Every structure is written in structure tokens, then in C-alpha cells.
């Protein structure tokens, strides 16, 4: 806290008022509403609602369809996180090493960050298109008849590919700034002690990068869970029935297409709990094992 502060009883509230108003109307009210309506069964035609206790949760969590989607979401999250972190780290390590052209590489590698997920999805759809998609032709060379939008696993492959592509710049930026904040003296000492570059990376650089990697792990989880909505929505093209979707997409589908307010709210609350657990996990368990240089 600051040593010197203004002491005024009214002014701080005046400054806080706009932010608080927005937060209460558009954050706390809907969140409370989500929790409340998750205990009610809403009439689809708007004629009142009945209190059903935990029935919406029980229905949701025992539905094989929901559990299947949950399993897919977990798989999707792990794949997207792993590949985008690995690619981001590899590129950052290389970009940190080279001297000539490093700023050009940096510019090229970060530019995709600003592309919106649905736009990335649209471009992905074109590359995986049955008629004009180069990736489909490439796969055909290896005897893989790719049918994105029809075949479940082919669609999964395309979705993961696009979601990873979109997220690499973000991980790259953070790994690069993590690498560049390692003091030169540490690097020089490491070079004297160890000739092998790969071993030097895993024993010296990697431990110093763990705070960054750990932070990115959580960010990538939330990215795969929530921000990929646009990618998925564009890639399944309204035919979600036999295509892979994530839990966030299911909340949207049930709420807006299926008009199942209670069920959708229960799913919202389940997702809230998942995010809270992730956050608590972040602070309680993982942080202790991480080396802060």
C-alpha cells in the first residue's frame, strides 16, 4: 500500500461507482441468476417455473451425452494446451537464440494473435474443405480420406489444429519474454558448466521458465474451454449432432437452441466450479512446486 494517500470518505466511492455498477448489473446479477435458475425447471413457453432442487444437476451429470461431451472437452483441452505450449516454447527458444532477423521472426510469429477465433475457424474450414482444401489433398496422398464436418475424429483433428494455430503466438510472446528476463550472468555460467545445449536447456533454462509455463498452463486451459467457442461454432456449422463439441458450446446449445434454461444454468454452474477449482489448484498446489528465480 501507498505511504501517502488521500483520505476522503466520499470521493473513492465516486471513482469506483461506474465500475461497481457495471460489475453488479452484468456480473453478480447474472451469476446469481445462473445459480438460482439451476434449481428450477423452466416452462419452455414462459409459464412460470417449478423448484426441482438438484434435479437439473442430477439429470446433467447422469446424461451419457453430457459425459461424452465432458470427456471430449478434457481431451480437446489437453491436446490444444500441449501442442500450443510445445510449439510456442520451441519457437521462443529459437527466436531467443538467433540474432540476425530476430525482430522479423517475432513480428511474423505474433501477428496471428489478433485474429478472432471464428475467423480462424473460417480459414481453417477452407483449408479442410472437401473440394478446395489443401490439407484434405495432402492427407489423401497418405491414403487418409479426410471428411471434416462428417467424420467425428477428422473434425476433432481440424478443430485442434485451428485452435492450436491461433494460440501459438500468445504462448510464444510469454515464453520469449520469460527467456529474455533470465539474467545474462546465469546463461554465461551455464555455458561454462555445460557444453551440451539441450541439457543446458533442461537443467538451467527450463526450471527458470516454470513460473511462465505454469501461468500459461492455466491460461491455455481456459482458452481451450471457453475462447474456442468461435472456432467450434464455425467449424460444426450448425450440425452439432454428430460433431465433437465442448461443454461451453453445449451450454449455449441447450440454452438458446433447446430453450432448457434450468439445464443450461446447471451446466453453467458446473463450469463455474471447474474454473474455480482450476484457480484454487493454481494457487494452492502447483505454485509451491514451481521455481521462482
Amino acid at each position, binding site marked *: 500500500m*501507498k*505511504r*501517502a*494517500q*488521500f*483520505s*476522503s470518505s466520499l470521493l*473513492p466511492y465516486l471513482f*469506483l461507482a*461506474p*465500475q461497481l455498477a*457495471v*460489475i453488479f448489473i452484468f*456480473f453478480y446479477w*447474472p451469476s446469481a*441468476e*445462473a445459480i438460482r435458475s439451476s434449481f428450477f425447471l423452466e416452462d419452455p413457453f414462459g409459464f412460470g417455473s417449478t423448484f426441482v432442487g438438484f434435479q437439473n444437476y442430477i439429470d446433467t451429470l447422469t446424461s451419457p451425452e453430457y459425459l461424452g461431451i465432458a470427456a471430449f472437452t478434457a481431451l480437446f483441452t489437453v491436446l490444444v494446451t500441449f501442442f500450443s505450449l510445445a510449439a510456442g516454447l520451441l519457437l521462443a527458444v529459437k*527466436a531467443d*537464440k*538467433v540474432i540476425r*532477423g530476430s525482430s522479423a521472426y*517475432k513480428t*511474423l510469429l*505474433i*501477428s496471428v494473435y*489478433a*485474429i*478472432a477465433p*471464428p*475467423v480462424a475457424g473460417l*480459414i*481453417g474450414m*477452407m*483449408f479442410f474443405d472437401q*473440394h*478446395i*482444401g*489443401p490439407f484434405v489433398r495432402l492427407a489423401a496422398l497418405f491414403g487418409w480420406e479426410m471428411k471434416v464436418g462428417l467424420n467425428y475424429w477428422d473434425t476433432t483433428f481440424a478443430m485442434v489444429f485451428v485452435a492450436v*494455430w491461433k494460440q501459438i503466438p500468445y504462448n510464444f*510472446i*510469454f515464453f520469449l519474454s520469460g527467456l529474455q528476463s533470465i539474467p545474462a550472468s546465469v*546463461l*554465461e555460467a551455464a555455458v561454462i558448466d555445460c557444453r551440451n545445449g539441450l541439457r543446458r536447456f533442461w537443467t538451467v533454462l527450463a526450471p527458470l521458465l516454470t513460473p511462465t509455463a505454469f*501461468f500459461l498452463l492455466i491460461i491455455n486451459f*481456459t482458452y481451450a474451454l471457453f475462447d474456442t*467457442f*468461435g472456432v467450434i*461454432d*464455425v467449424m460444426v*456449422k450448425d450440425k452439432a449432432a454428430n460433431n465433437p463439441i465442448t461443454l461451453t458450446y453445449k*451450454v*449455449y446449445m441447450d440454452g*438458446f437452441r433447446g430453450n432448457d434454461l434450468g439445464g*443450461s*444454468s446447471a451446466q453453467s454452474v458446473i*463450469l*463455474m466450479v471447474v*474454473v*474455480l477449482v482450476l*484457480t484454487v489448484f493454481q494457487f494452492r498446489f502447483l505454485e509451491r512446486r514451481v521455481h521462482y528465480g
Partner: protein
Amino acid sequence: MYRTNFRDHLVLIIGSLMMLLPVVVAFTTSTHEAADIHMNGLTLVPGDHFAETYETVLTRQGGFTGKVTGLTMLGNSLILGLGFAIGKIVLSMLAAYAIVYFRFRAATAMFWIIFTTLLLPLEVRILPSYEVMHKLGLINTYTGLIVPLLASATGTFFFRQFFKSVPDELLEAARIDGAGPFKFFIDILVPLSRTMIAAMFIIMFVYGWNQYLWPMLMTNDEGFYTLVRGIKQILIVWVGSQIPDYNEAFAMAVLAMLPPVALVVIFQNWFIKGLTESDK
């Protein structure tokens, strides 16, 4: 110290191509005719239909009601991006100023009320948010499009960190010279935060411009569609036609990604600074 070898460059070149080729191909393909693309597939060679494709996309009245053009959507995207960025900066600077520079009883409580919002993204409360918006009559309004997105503490957190790093002596000196809370904020703190404001502006503009789910829920009147929101419409039209207008779909994608990408590339130093300092 290090010998940079050929392999490092090779990895970087392959990586850059992987990242950028799809974007370049999207642009070059958009300059060909639809039938051409249908026969020959995607291409890296620029075609000669650039002007007419983009003119069509920007000015032709399309959509179900036939009154929305690419230009309308471009304008809406700008309104959303600018409105969100400016709103976010104003709101969060004021709130951070109150939290850092004032001694008042409820300070800790206020801090937690605001920072709890970092825990839950908008996506987990879309349906109740929609209900609330409906009750308030904000469907199909710019207010409804922009203001609910401001209900998160990312910017406040960022400015709080920055204000805390500002030396205490500054406030002490300003008070000796007789500056009150308003004068200190406007004449000293805001000019001091210029770089931070620029960094925040870029990040928030890109975030606002790229919104998809929220505009999709909030607007069903096509007059309020943004470019990113319109992507879905392109695909729906596209699914039903014999020879899809690949060129126009790509042109829309290029329009939707050009402004944010240009902003990030041109101001990349500010952007990276803002990103790496706000999220940690």
C-alpha cells in the same frame, strides 16, 4: 556466446510459414473468381479481381433483410472495438485510482468485489446474462453490446499494478504544491500513464473487435452485426449454394482480421508490454 546455426533459422522459418501462410493464402485467394477457386483450389498467386470482390463485399446489400453491407459491419466492429477499449480504460483507471490512492474503510472489500470477476469468464453465464439484458431492454443496442463486456477486472488490475509502482514522492510533492485528488489524477497520473494507456488500448481494441459469442446473443437485428459476428452468416449462405462464393468469404475474413492484426503488428512493443504485464 552462442553460435546460431542453420537449424535454428530453419525451425523459425517453418514456424513463421505455418503461422502466416494461411493468412496470405486467404488474401490471395480472395482476389480470384469463385468459379476459378472452385476448380483450382486455394492459391498463393494473386488474382486480378481484387477491386470488384472487395467492392461487392463492402457495398452490396445482403443478409435476410437486405439492408446490411460490409461497410455497416465494419462500422459496427469499429464502434464495438473503440467503445469497449475506451470504456474499459476510463472505468478501470478510475477504479484503480480509488483503490490505490485513497484510504477508506471498505477498500479491501471493494478490491475483492472487483477482482472476483477475474475468476469467471462471460461464457459461463451467457444465458442468465441474456435474460438480464432482455429485462433491461438492451437487446439490439450498442449499450447492450459494449457495457456488459466491461464487467471484468483485467484493466483495473493492470492499472493498479502500475499505480503502485509510481513513486510515493510524486503524490507528496503534489500535495505540498496544493494539488487535490482531481488535479493530481488529471495533471500527473494520467500523463504519466500514457504508455500504459496505449498498451491497454491495443489489447482491449483487439479483444472488443474480436468478440463473437456476446454479439451473437445480443443482436439479431442485422443492422448491428459486426464483421466477426457476420462470419456465421457467410457460412450459412455458403452451405446452400452450388458454387460457394469462396472469394467473398475470404474477403470478409480478410476485412475482419486486417485492423486488429495491423494494430498489433505496428504497435507490437506496446502490445507485448501491455500483455505480459497485465496478465501476470
